[in-house]
């Protein structure tokens, strides 16, 4: 059994305790080196982050469990209103711009919460709500993009594509649109991807698709018409 009696010292070394005597041992002990190597290799399993939606779902549930009245997103509006009122009560007018920031944040929380709903109709409402935000932040655009890419309902995805037309030039949106065209997607969604890319002035990308032999016939027909129509402008 190698290195009997060194257990504690090695463990302390891992925690960063300086010990010259152990360091000298380590320098010429392959077994201890191998253990240290294992410890370092463990660091290769990188940290993963939970989905951004987790925080939203948590707050929704927290709200449900602590306030059993009201329904659906209306409760969110109620919370938002209550917080706004408490802000007004405690603040002077100099804080108004702060307040605006906070309120805008809450609207976005509501938008994000709606996009996470189980009912497709509620998610459609979330898209409308998000699209109506004056200046949605990156998180909202990212959530809409996620909806476009992964929602379980084709209709919801198409609605997200329509809402994202305003932000077609955003890198996240462009990236998602390109992926829609390369992945094995429903033709309806691919057509939405073409619309988005043309709105982003990425004509070259759309032209590249012509060379894709596996392209659905409906998509190809649409693509030709869309490119032709662009020429008239």
């Amino acid at each position: 059994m190698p290195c009997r009696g060194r257990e504690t010292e090695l463990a302390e070394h891992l925690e960063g305790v300086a010990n010259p005597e152990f360091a000298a041992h380590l320098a010429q002990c392959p077994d201890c080196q191998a253990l240290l190597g294992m410890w370092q290799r463990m660091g290769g399993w990188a940290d993963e982050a939970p989905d951004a939606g987790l925080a939203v779902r948590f707050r929704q549930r927290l709200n449900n469990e602590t306030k059993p009245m009201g329904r659906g997103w209306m409760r969110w509006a109620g919370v938002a209103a209550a917080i706004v009122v408490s802000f007004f009560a405690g603040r002077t007018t100099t804080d108004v711009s702060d307040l605006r920031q906070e309120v805008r944040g809450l609207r976005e929380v509501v938008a994000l919460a709606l996009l996470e709903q189980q009912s497709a109709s509620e998610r459609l409402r979330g898209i409308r709500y998000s699209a109506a935000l004056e200046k949605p932040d990156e998180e909202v655009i990212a959530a809409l993009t996620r909806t476009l890419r992964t929602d379980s309902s084709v209709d919801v995805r198409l609605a997200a594509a329509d809402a994202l037309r305003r932000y077609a030039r955003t890198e996240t949106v462009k990236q998602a649109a390109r992926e829609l065209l390369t992945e094995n997607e429903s033709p309806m969604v691919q057509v939405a991807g073409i619309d988005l890319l043309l709105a982003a002035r990425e004509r070259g990308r759309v032209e590249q698709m012509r060379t894709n032999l596996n392209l659905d016939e409906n998509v190809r027909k649409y693509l030709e018409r869309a490119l032709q129509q662009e020429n008239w402008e």
Partner: protein
Amino acid sequence: MRWIWILGLVCGVGWAERISVPFRDPSRPGLVKASALNGSITVQTHAGKEVLVEVGAAKGWAVEEEGSSVRISPVGQGKNSDLQIWVPERTSLNLRSVNGRGIFVENVEGDLDVESVNGSVNLNNVSGTVVAHALNGKLTVRLKQVSRDKPMSFSTLNGTVDVTLPPDVAANFQVRNVWGEIRSDFAIGTAVETKQPRPGKMLTGRVNGGGPEISFRSMNGSIYIRKAGVR
């Protein structure tokens, strides 16, 4: 937390088998999620408070209860096994089918989210909200009553979209068809979008003063929007 536990694994041997799944909380409307790869899905209502599932022959199905929802999905790649479901009248549905005749729903009231790839979708005499898509099949929806202030959406690639709505429905219609025709009993403004032109026809308009958005989309099929009671 959403615990999933398996209530039953139905292995029909040549004849139909039926099981009954109660909702954990029958006082609230539940959700039924069902998917079928090679078979049709039929959903009807019954007076009971539980969900009845009947499968015709062939392979197994997994039925899981998860809080206030019941999920029915095929285990492995079944051949032609059709799924028949009976639910309480107030139930939300989330239905998906790939091959087979498609999806048929009657008399259910709730949030209905229905998609079929190759079959048709027929929702008859339903209420609540509908978000429905049929890629290659026909999409027929007859809505008895619609939820206030909730958006809806109907779409097909190649099939006809045929939707009947109550005459007093208050909504903002959005109709887009690339190659097919659009016909409506409701007077919709004929404003064609011109800011960022896209191929096809696009109509938007308020009906009965306006309300939540109702979208109708198709590429090759016709879109018919009918007013209930008008021939």
